[in-house]
């Protein structure tokens, strides 16, 4: 049955008229321009010095700009702490609920969607009154907030990875063959979840490096906050920083997709030659 469905019947004949194709082409071209133009403009502006001539000076000055390295460092540290929280707290919790307490899955899903209904501006509003001086002592107090804000995609990603595998059966099979819980975790769960883990990690990283709202009101000079403030000194340098940030996120997500692509093709090649 699978074989019949694979070739002929999956793609329906699109309108093959010439004007249909031309229209599609035009729309795609316009979309392409729309999305690429600002990136082009951004890079062009970044690669200019104050006199308007082409130069890499903005990039060089960026690293020396006052406050840049400190803010970049802070963002990086926050990312690391958030990632630790995500990998060692959120992911195990999701797995645990899926395996041991499946009745709570619904509640977990609701919780993970709440940051969409209650956006950062609301959450930071709720914290202002508290002005948790006690909390502000810890330099990374933004990390748990970020952890909560990334729940929507992390939980959804891991959950779908788990249900796609029928983890329950795998674990039971491993259990019946005699392995302990940790071995199961290492040998069965993690390899199969790796693509979901990698993808959601990339999103978390991209998120932390670009989160502005909470950092600004909590008065933490992360990278985006610095970029916004520095704009008053030099538009070129700020724009350069913004471009670097955007391209960094792009590279990160592309790398993730490439890794995923490489692994799946490797897997199919290996099974074909077997």
């Amino acid at each position, binding site marked *: *049955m699978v*074989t*019949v*469905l694979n*070739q*002929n*019947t999956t793609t*329906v*004949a699109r309108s093959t008229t010439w004007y249909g194709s031309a229209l599609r082409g035009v729309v795609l071209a316009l979309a392409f321009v729309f999305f690429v133009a600002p990136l082009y403009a951004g890079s062009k502006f970044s690669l200019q010095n104050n006199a308007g001539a082409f130069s890499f000076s903005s990039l060089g000055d960026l690293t020396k700009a006052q406050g840049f390295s400190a803010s970049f460092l802070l963002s990086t540290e926050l990312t690391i702490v958030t990632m630790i929280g995500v990998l060692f707290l959120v992911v195990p919790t999701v797995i645990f609920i899926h395996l041991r307490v499946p009745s709570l899955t619904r509640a977990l899903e609701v919780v993970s969607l709440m940051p969409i209904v209650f956006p950062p501006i609301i959450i930071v509003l709720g914290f202002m009154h508290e002005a948790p001086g006690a909390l502000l002592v810890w330099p990374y107090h933004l990390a748990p907030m970020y952890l909560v804000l990334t729940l929507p995609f992390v939980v959804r990603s891991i959950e779908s990875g788990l249900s796609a595998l029928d983890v329950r059966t795998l674990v039971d099979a491993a259990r019946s063959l005699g392995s302990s819980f940790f071995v199961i975790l290492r040998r069965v769960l993690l390899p199969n979840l790796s693509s979901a883990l990698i993808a959601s990690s990339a999103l978390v990283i991209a998120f932390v490096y670009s989160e502005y709202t909470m950092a600004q009101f909590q008065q933490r000079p992360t990278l985006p906050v610095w970029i916004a403030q520095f704009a008053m000194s030099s538009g070129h340098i700020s724009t350069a920083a913004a471009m670097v940030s955007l391209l960094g996120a792009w590279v990160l997500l592309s790398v993730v997709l490439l890794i995923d692509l490489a692994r799946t093709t490797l897997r199919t090649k290996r099974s074909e030659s077997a």
Partner: protein
Amino acid sequence: MNSVSGASVSLDSLQHSYAGVKALDNFTLHVAPGELVALLGPSGCGKTTALRAVAGFLTPDSGRVVVGDTDVTSLPSQKRDMGMVFQSYSLFPNLSVRDNVEFGLRLRRVKSASRRSRSHELLEMVGLADQAVKYPHQLSGGQQQRVALARALAVEPQVLLLDEPLSALDAKVRSELREQIQALQKRLSMTTIFVTHDQEEALSIADRVVVMNKGKAEQISTPQELYSQPATTFVAEFVGVSSRYRCERSGATVQIFGRSVPIRNADTQTTGQVHALLRPEDVVVTASDSGVARVLRSSFLGSSVRLEVETPHGIIRADVPASQVVSAGSMVELSYRSENVLIATLDESKELRAL
């Protein structure tokens, strides 16, 4: 119930390739009005491609599709006045069963009252009149296919196309629906093309069967002829069961179990080792202590018993009546009872084994 008569369908020298693979290789077929023709073959043989060319979902690279007197090769499917039942999931999920069946009628501006009575009539024909207001996701697979059939027939098409309609169903439902389709088709005398990879299906309901392989028609005959007189080794192995028996060929005969048997597809006169293809029902088994053949296994099939017998020239499957008691491990003697035999060269057999 007005009886419908179908139109004739001709596929002339259809050629079609995609992704570098030849899906149809000079494929020609003429279907008479009211005939049920089955396209049978393994996946990738081109049967679905041929059907889709008739339906209008693809335009072949070359060749013609003619329905009745009209060349429809480049006519879009909307205008071809055909009915089609797909393998699965073809009912419109947002419409009730009745609305699904009435869909084609509604497009043709049939008035509401006559639409209703026609859809009721058809649903009665397929036995689902009481499910008219249900939605597709509330029905079982077999019921969905019956609705799909009613929907296709509602517009009184000239030709009915069936693309593996039973493959996704359970065995029991499959045979019931198969009979229903056959009965309906006979009653309406509708020209029907039925695609399947299940030979039992094809042989049981078709007037003629086209066995396809790699885009070509290997043989086009009635089911009986196909089974008893397979024209090529592919057909012999695909339709029914054949066992391979290594033997010496001398001219136009081979030696099977000590008897000289004429070769059916003798096109060239050569000598050498070949494989004779033996049908289980043509092999007679007699218990004999001096026999050189040993029974490996016996499977009870109800009215007969299938034996797997080991001989120095290959493992042979033989059917014996259930009353004849032959136990595994016993020694037997075999003889061949048909008048001629199909042979395959050793190379051909290797290729077929890979299927």
